[in-house]
């Protein structure tokens, strides 16, 4: 399954967004504020769920702010972290 689709499913499921389907979330929609309307508690929940679902950790706000902008930035972050950890294993 496409990583971006998985991220959308995770957000809908874990943040209990009942009114949206993954297909209805645009890849570049802002996650916070005007976009999906997520807030600070959602951000904490997202950080936890990213680690549970994908094994990637957002360690601080410097990493989190650019990663949590949209589905595109989130997918980019997850992919980069997963590539990095594969390189380490090799």
């Amino acid at each position: 399954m496409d990583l971006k689709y998985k991220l959308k499913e995770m957000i809908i499921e874990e943040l209990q967004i009942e009114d949206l389907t993954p297909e209805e979330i645009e890849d570049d929609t802002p996650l916070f504020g005007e976009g999906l309307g997520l807030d600070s508690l959602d951000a904490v929940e997202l950080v936890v769920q990213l680690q549970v679902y994908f094994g990637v950790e957002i360690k601080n706000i410097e990493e989190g702010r650019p990663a949590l902008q949209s589905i595109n930035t989130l997918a980019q972050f997850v992919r980069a972290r997963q590539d990095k950890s594969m390189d380490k294993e090799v």
Partner: protein
Amino acid sequence: MGRTHAFDWTPGGMGASYGMDSPLDDPANPVAGESHAFTADTSSLTEFVAKGKLRRIDHYSRMALLACGRAIKDVPPSLFPRGRTGVILATGYGALSSTFSFLDSYIEKGDKLAFPTHFSNSVHNAAAAHISICYNIKGPSLTVSQLDMSFFSALITAGSWLETRKTDAVLVGTADTYCNVMGYCIDKFSRSRKKTPYSFGEGAVFFLVSRATHARPVYGYIDQVTMGQSRNREIPLDVDIIFTPSSTDTCHAAPGKLRAGHTRELKVRRHGFSPTDSSMDAAYALEGKSRTCCIKLGQNGAWGKLMITPADGKNK
């Protein structure tokens, strides 16, 4: 002996979201050794609170919000001054499901990956805070937890807020929820379960109470709230009695032996037990016709007693 608090205040509105509609089994014919649970349906809460605001609110808080919404809807706006209304929520166990879900995530995944949303809902005062925020209530917001005596403790506090004019009205009520862990514990550890059929209940009941200043109360009066710890419960002979055993299995006392000489009607509720189910009895008594004493037993000899005079009873 018990400590009695006599008040002159009256419930203007009542609302409940109690688990009476969807029993897992037939409550009228429980089988010894088997547990039963009544779960509450909160789907109609969107009548009072926008769906978007409910996203992270758990079932426990939703039950409380629904009961409050119904109580507020039940009164004219003049009896509900939002700026001078307080909120008191009584609960025996709090949001059990959220608490166990948080603890499970903590144990299984470690402290770094414990779920924040479950934590926020597991905080005991979360439901009272949701009530104040969703219904724009500006007065003090309090949660009290004293197991089976929680509702009585909350009523005494509500009475003192009204008497000292800290608030002009208080939205006081209860919420307790059923969860599988509780069912498991009762089944596993209850000493009397094999002898006594046990039905769980969950739900919330709220009353909007104010000082008894208007000519005729909507429902009636809560005349006395008494809590005690001895065998002498000072049960009056000339009133109906609603008797409620403890939510645990330690004191399923025979209601027929409450007091010799009592000749009026003695009722034992048929809906499921919870630590704060006496609020349901109070609602039932307020809708009745005659003066009623609601008695709730707790652990280690504790008991609570309410004297309720419904509007019809007072005017007789």
